[in-house]
């Protein structure tokens, strides 16, 4: 029994951290731009396949490849997602959602064409190999990196939003973009910045989970689904809610996996989110502002 409780707690933190890294960027875009970024799945693909392209095709070593992949990610976000799609269609929701989804599918197809699953894509970003024991529970040591990365990135984002001038502006926009505009906040500068900030967590996420996760061209869709689920549960665009929701989802997953049937993890999460939406449609935190 003690072993089960230990395992539940350890995995609640591990899984929660993973869900947090996956969802943070999606939630940020929801909060600042007020849009559902259905192209978010492509961000994961650009991160992981960008790394592979720089390393395997262009022969770069690990660190230069990491630098290049962040540059690529920023260029992709601004040059393909923000300026041609988001900026143009931000007021036309149907066009915006369709275009973002289409772009995501185009990226998926392109990746599948150049690097199909049989290409054997793998990124050597493992900091640790092997397992570590926490109490009586064993986890891959690399998962500790995931936990640390999630806490660090989240802490930095929260500090940035609470303590910097740009952070204030971002929060002001998330509260009321029209009012912020009247007070002199330049939306055309903050929006692209928010888009760039939103792609950093998924990129880090991909780099740290690659040693324990499959890399395949269709992976973006399932990660997008996770991000949507956590963000909805947390309250659209509310980072505090997203953090709490990530760990709630992590806790549900580990309780069902260890105390129940691992086969039912996915269903249990969906059921909980469904009931939260029925009885608290705004999610855990009311999404009036980003924080």
């Amino acid at each position, binding site marked *: 029994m003690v072993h089960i409780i230990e395992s539940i707690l350890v995995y609640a933190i591990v899984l929660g951290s993973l869900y947090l890294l996956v969802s943070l960027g999606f939630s940020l875009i929801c909060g600042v731009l007020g849009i559902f970024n259905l192209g978010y799945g492509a961000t994961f693909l650009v991160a992981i396949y960008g790394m592979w392209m720089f390393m395997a095709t262009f022969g770069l070593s690990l660190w230069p490849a990491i630098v290049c992949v962040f540059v690529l990610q920023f260029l992709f976000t601004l040059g393909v997602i923000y300026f041609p799609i988001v900026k143009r269609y931000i007021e036309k929701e149907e066009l915006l959602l369709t275009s973002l989804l289409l772009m995501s599918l185009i990226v998926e197809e392109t990746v599948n064409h150049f690097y199909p699953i049989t290409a054997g894509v793998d990124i050597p970003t493992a900091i640790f190999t092997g397992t570590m024991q926490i109490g009586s529970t064993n986890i891959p040591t690399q998962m500790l990196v995931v936990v640390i990365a999630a806490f660090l990135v989240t802490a930095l984002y929260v500090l940035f939003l609470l303590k910097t001038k740009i952070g204030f502006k971002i929060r002001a926009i998330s509260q009321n973009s029209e009012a912020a505009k009247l007070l002199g906040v330049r939306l055309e500068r903050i929006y692209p910045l928010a888009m760039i900030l939103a792609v950093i967590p998924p990129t880090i996420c991909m780099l740290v989970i690659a040693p324990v996760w499959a890399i395949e061209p269709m992976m973006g869709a*399932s990660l997008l689904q996770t991000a949507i689920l956590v963000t909805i549960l947390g309250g659209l665009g509310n980072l505090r809610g997203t953090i709490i929701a990530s760990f709630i989802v992590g806790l549900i997953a580990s309780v069902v996996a260890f105390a129940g049937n691992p086969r039912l993890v996915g269903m249990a999460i969906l059921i909980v989110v469904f009931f939260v939406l029925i009885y608290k449609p705004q999610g855990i935190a009311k999404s009036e502002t980003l924080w």
Partner: protein
Amino acid sequence: MKRKALQLVLCLCMIFLITGMIILPGFIRESFAAEPIKIGFIGALSTPYGASNKASLEISIDEINKAGGIMGRPVELITEDWKREIPLAVAAYKKLVMKDKCLIVFTEGTEGSTACAQLGARLYSTYPHLMFSFWSAHESLMDLVGNEYNKYKFMFRVYSNTADSYNPAFGFNDFFKQTVGTKKLALLIEDIGWTEVYRNGRPGVYPTLKEYLEKDGIQVVYEGKTDIKEKMFLPILEKVAASGADTIYWVTGYTDTVTLVKQWDQSPAKDMDLILMSGAVSYAAFWKMTGGRALGVTAMWPEIPIPFTNKSKPFLDELKARGSGLLASTYGAYDGPWILKAAAEEVGDFDVEKLIKAIEKGEFRHSSWIWAFDKRHEPKKGYPYLPNIMGQFQEDGRYIVVLPQKLIEVTNPKAKYVRVKDLRKRAGQ
């Protein structure tokens, strides 16, 4: 004068008529002989399996045409993409049979093949044709011909199915007991249509897989079902490790085996032998996909070039040159048109009923094993007929055959199955 002219015209007409009667049938025959035999293929072309099947069929048909076609008639391949969507498979099948008049249609996937079989049964009387299906694992498919022969006789399956695990000719349980040395087994089965028999059995016909293994003396100490969308296998592996099993047998097909193996290698279950059924694990590239974490992992239908006959190597070289992988259904896709050619040349006709009888009675061999079909139009099992091939990843990603013995002898005679613990020791891990 008029009469003479009339006689002349009549004579000329008679000459034309007689000449026509002599030449025309030959001319018609010549024209007909030039008509190609059409072979249809419905594949999910963006998937490795669809691409491999297509390339194999193309190579096969190119070779048949170079060898003079089938009874002098060229062969033409018409390919349709079903994108793993049943309505698209049905529409493609209808087009291939009704519009393109294909003599034979190759289909893939359990769902797609089942839908096509139903449609084919309705079309058969008006459009007689043959259907060869691969990657159609659900055991209910194999009963169609057996239970309603006249309705489904046009359908042959060129790939093994779920129930094959119960077939002693495959020596599957002996593999666990003798080759692996399993004492206690953890059995995990992905929860999806094609594994229904394994999970629930079939009253009076098949036991559950757990019952079958235990009846044969393999102790199952952990049993679980897994979601095919699962990405986090660590909790399951933690439970498996606590069960005391020495071997994990995970019935996979659609499960993300890359994530599974990466996490297995970094879990407390990493010293247990891991036997997977299929999925990405069957690819040779799986070693790279897992960053070398697949050491010791065993899978069915491994992507290993096996020299079955002297035709195997040229085919596999050509397949590689075309950038396609060698997967479970590849041999069936390549040998399929050759089976048709052999059957047609044996009966000297393209009459579908005669072709069915010829395929039912004949034994065919080209690049792989001997193809012979039983009453249910299932391939006969156990090498030299359809084998159950198992491969294990060893040091440096070497993928070796570990079952059946006869194929080990022709492929990697010096290598043998090694337990994961020993492999790790050997690799200095």
